[in-house]
């Protein structure tokens, strides 16, 4: 499973912080995106990037930022500052061949880009320092239903098995003539040869797995000493969410 997640092992304070609190911090960041102007968000981005570097996650975050945010930001600027019609269009420089741009469009593009970058960096820090299973245990401790936890945990554990099974089906079907190298029509026509056995096997497993889960008492767990979150963690979560709501209220009143 570890190959399929963004989690990076570590022992920093952020790694050790309760996943529930981290989720609330992420929610606070999401709310802040619509409160603060882009210069503030960009400054926050620089701080977050510096923090990720101190956590030895600098390369991890920077690479993904480049791949996901780079083209996005560029497209934003071109489209909003360059292509969309605007009343304030002006020359970029005092040259006859200079491009025209819209300052308002550029401002908007920078706002959207900074929101994207801020949320992306904060999310990457979250997923890099929070193992998915730890997050789900934390949610269970907060009272989230076992069914929800199952829905998010089970696929993480099944992905590798399914990938291997898909490869095995692909290999055996290829010996029976399935063609994934021919024309696009041939390849398209071959799709069912892989999906039909994969899905049929999966559905067959489903009823058995459900039977096993019920047989082992799934979702009927007897009350036991759950790892309940500490009081200060509960205060911290509520405080963070309160700040998020408060800043939105203040912004809307101004």
């Amino acid at each position, binding site marked *: 499973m570890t190959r399929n997640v963004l989690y990076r092992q570590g022992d920093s304070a952020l790694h050790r912080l309760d996943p529930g609190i981290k989720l609330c911090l992420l929610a606070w960041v999401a709310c802040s995106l619509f409160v603060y102007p882009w210069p503030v968000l960009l400054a926050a981005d620089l701080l977050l990037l510096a923090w990720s570097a101190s956590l030895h996650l600098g390369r991890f975050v920077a690479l993904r930022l480049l791949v996901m945010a780079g083209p996005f930001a560029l497209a934003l600027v071109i489209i909003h500052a360059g292509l969309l019609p605007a009343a304030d269009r002006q020359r970029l420089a005092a040259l006859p061949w200079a491009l025209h741009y819209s300052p308002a469009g550029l401002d908007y593009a920078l706002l959207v880009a900074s929101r994207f970058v801020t949320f992306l960096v904060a999310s990457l820090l979250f997923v890099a320092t929070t193992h998915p299973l730890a997050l789900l245990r934390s949610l269970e401790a907060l009272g989230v239903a076992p069914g929800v936890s*199952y829905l998010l945990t*089970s696929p993480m554990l099944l992905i590798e098995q399914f990938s291997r099974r898909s490869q095995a089906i692909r290999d055996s079907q290829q010996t029976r003539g399935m063609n994934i190298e021919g024309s696009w029509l041939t390849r398209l026509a071959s799709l069912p040869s892989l999906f039909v056995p994969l899905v049929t096997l999966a559905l067959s497993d489903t009823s058995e797995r459900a039977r096993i*889960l*019920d047989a*082992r*008492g*799934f979702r009927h767990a*007897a009350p036991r000493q759950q790892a309940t979150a500490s009081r200060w963690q509960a205060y911290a979560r509520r405080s963070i969410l309160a700040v998020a709501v408060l800043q939105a209220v203040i912004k809307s009143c101004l």
Partner: protein
Amino acid sequence: MPLIDMQHLNFAYREHAVLRDVNLQLEVGEHLAVIGGNGCGKTTFGHWLSGRLVQGETGNSSGSLLIDGRPWSAFEPLEHARTVQFVGQLPEQQITGLAATVADEVAFGARNLGLSVVEVDRRVEQVLRACELQALAQANPFELSGGELQRLGIGAAMAMQPKVLILDEPGSNLDPASRQVLINTLRQLRQHTTLVLLDVCVEFALQLATRFAILETGQLHHFAEPDAFLRAADRFGTLTGSPVADVGLALRARNLRAQSASLPTTVAALVSELKDLSDA
């Protein structure tokens, strides 16, 4: 009052009758082997017994099944889980898909029973040792071989310490050495655990069962003694019999041994018979 009391069970899936007038009374601690060929209805019988038919496959049924004097519908889910565990034929279908390690898989059901952490850990250690899975405790269940998965499925069921353990072809994916390990494991079952073995061959039955039955054309034929059971198995001709018993039957068919003499069920007993013959 018997632990399991099945009376005149009839079950048909659509037009196809699977079980006909099946009767069974099992006491606490009895070990029953039900032998039958492929497609004879053993798995369906096992599902009925465990109270967990697949959704949509209830078909047409009549008759009654009482566990400790009550129908399955009167059992709460956790009580049901404590009472019976069914381990199916296909090993990869016997894991929950919720555990990252073998140890977690074994512990999953025990945790749901509300046991203390100490008790859960104790059961896990006991089961891992009994099923020879200690070295694989931290392994990913999806990366185990068929035989290892089969031992894991049985181990996870044993960790629940059910009153009734139903195993469907438990040795099908195991090599001879692993089959013997499993037989030794099942011999360690708690004294008051009722065991029901569903199988196509008699190896496990002869080593573990105290009662025998053959499922043929939807009907369950009971035998109290292994001798009568093996002779009937030969008559039914639907089984891959024990090689040892087959030799014993062949000797009797050729009048080299008295028909009334008990059939050998172990290699040692067969060797003794053959030695008697050569001395005679």
